[in-house]
């Protein structure tokens, strides 16, 4: 009984929030131009799924986001390993990176447009530039904090540098790398949306931007709900992947 109630509670709250939205729309406290009712919003979403018209922008946004994120993760882990494991690489690279890091990634959009034009390459460059930082920082930490004992074990077993990197350093840094990649993915979604708006590339970001311009508020709200859904799903998905990859870790209370 109490278990059932515990499970119902979050559901009740969510239903309450939506009911509030519905009431505000129903009594026209806010004009429907600005606030469509929830059922119209979800209807819109259902229709777009049913007629398949959502797939094009959805897949475009997801593809852009994932390609940029993967590039960023690759670069972040490689650079992070170099800086975390080699003091020389750290001396040469980290001041430059420290200067670039606080730069808002969106500020790179004009620069990227200069180089790539209003193209897919521009978007991917900006997404990768923005989502590389959390991966890079956490990789530097992870590779820089391999336990001394494990380094000694590697030395005692006469491991080569490559073997050490593969068998000891990378698995040891994996929890940090994955945490960084999770933050990076959230950033890459944001930047995918921004670059779509800015460069008018096909995708959910451009769609909600255009919906706003022509006051199609139902479409706008449906788009926002869809983006939220993506955010929740990718976060959940990565969380699952993380738990599986790190199953050797003692369960947290």
């Amino acid at each position, binding site marked *: 009984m109490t278990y059932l109630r515990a499970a119902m509670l979050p559901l009740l709250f969510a239903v309450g929030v939506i009911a509030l939205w519905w009431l505000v729309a129903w009594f026209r406290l806010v004009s429907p131009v600005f606030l469509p009712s929830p059922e119209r919003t979800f209807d819109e979403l259902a229709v777009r799924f049913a007629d398949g018209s959502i797939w094009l922008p959805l897949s475009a946004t997801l593809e852009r986001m994932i390609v940029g994120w993967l590039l960023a993760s690759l670069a972040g882990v490689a650079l992070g390993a170099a800086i975390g494991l080699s003091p020389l690489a750290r001396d040469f690279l980290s001041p430059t990176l420290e200067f670039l890091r606080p730069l808002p990634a969106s500020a790179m959009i004009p620069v990227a447009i200069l180089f790539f034009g209003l193209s897919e390459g521009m978007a991917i460059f900006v997404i990768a530039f923005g989502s590389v930082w959390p991966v890079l920082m956490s990789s530097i930490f992870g590779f820089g904090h391999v336990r001394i004992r494990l380094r000694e074990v590697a030395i005692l077993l006469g491991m080569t540098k490559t073997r050490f990197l593969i068998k000891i350093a990378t698995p040891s840094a994996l929890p940090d790398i994955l945490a960084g990649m999770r933050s990076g993915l959230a950033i890459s979604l*944001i930047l995918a949306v921004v670059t779509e708006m800015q460069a008018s590339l096909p995708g959910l970001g451009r769609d909600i931007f255009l919906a706003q311009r022509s006051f199609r508020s139902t479409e706008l709200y449906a788009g926002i709900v869809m983006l939220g859904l993506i955010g929740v799903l990718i976060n959940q998905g990565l969380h699952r992947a993380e738990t599986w990859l790190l199953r050797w870790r003692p369960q947290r209370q």
Partner: protein
Amino acid sequence: MERLWRGALPPVLILALWETSARTGAMTYASLSYPSAIVRAGANALLDGSLLLSTWQTCQAALLGLALGSAIGVLLGSALGLSNIAQRAAGPTFDAMRAVPSVALMPLSLLLLGWGLAMEVSVIAYSCCWPVMIATSAAVRGVEPRLLEVADALELTPLARLWKIVLPAAFARIGVGVRIALGIALVVAVTIEIAVNPRGLGYALVLAQQSLKPDLMFGQILWLAAIGFALNAVLSMADTVRGAP
């Protein structure tokens, strides 16, 4: 000393290469300008006050948004931290709302509020309230139980309890959340300005790019990086000061 020149080497090398290739005409990107022109354009913009004005507009929006977002975050976080039922009921909904990328709300706030400071502040506030909410709820949960027993013994009303005991005790940890939010505020402000809102540093950046003034554009980016760098330095200094016993 050794480390200093090592760190300076890559940027100096890139800048020197950039400068010489631009001046000798070896570079194919005519629209890329070159370092000395960039510094000159940046300095000019700084001196004629236009850069400072747009910086002020961006900071104003960022700080107002941060203040509003922090206030909301502290309120929500206190509620979640004080009541297990609130945490269980509202937690998942807030998690879902948090997952909505802040920039997706730009068109919405534009629809509701139009261009200007208000729409920018509202989106920044939305982005800033989550880290503060999480930090506050964790901090409130972490308040020493003895202090709460004191509050019980004094028979404080719930509000007095929150105001006099819980929030002061949780202050330092809430501060951590606000500092995270500060970094977010600046980034989101610039992003909104670049994407939709015609004011501030972000818009100046887009304007410079669209009017084919790459020297001014890179000068502004340099300035933006310097601001971010300074902000980071101040924040990490605050960290070390706070960390000292």
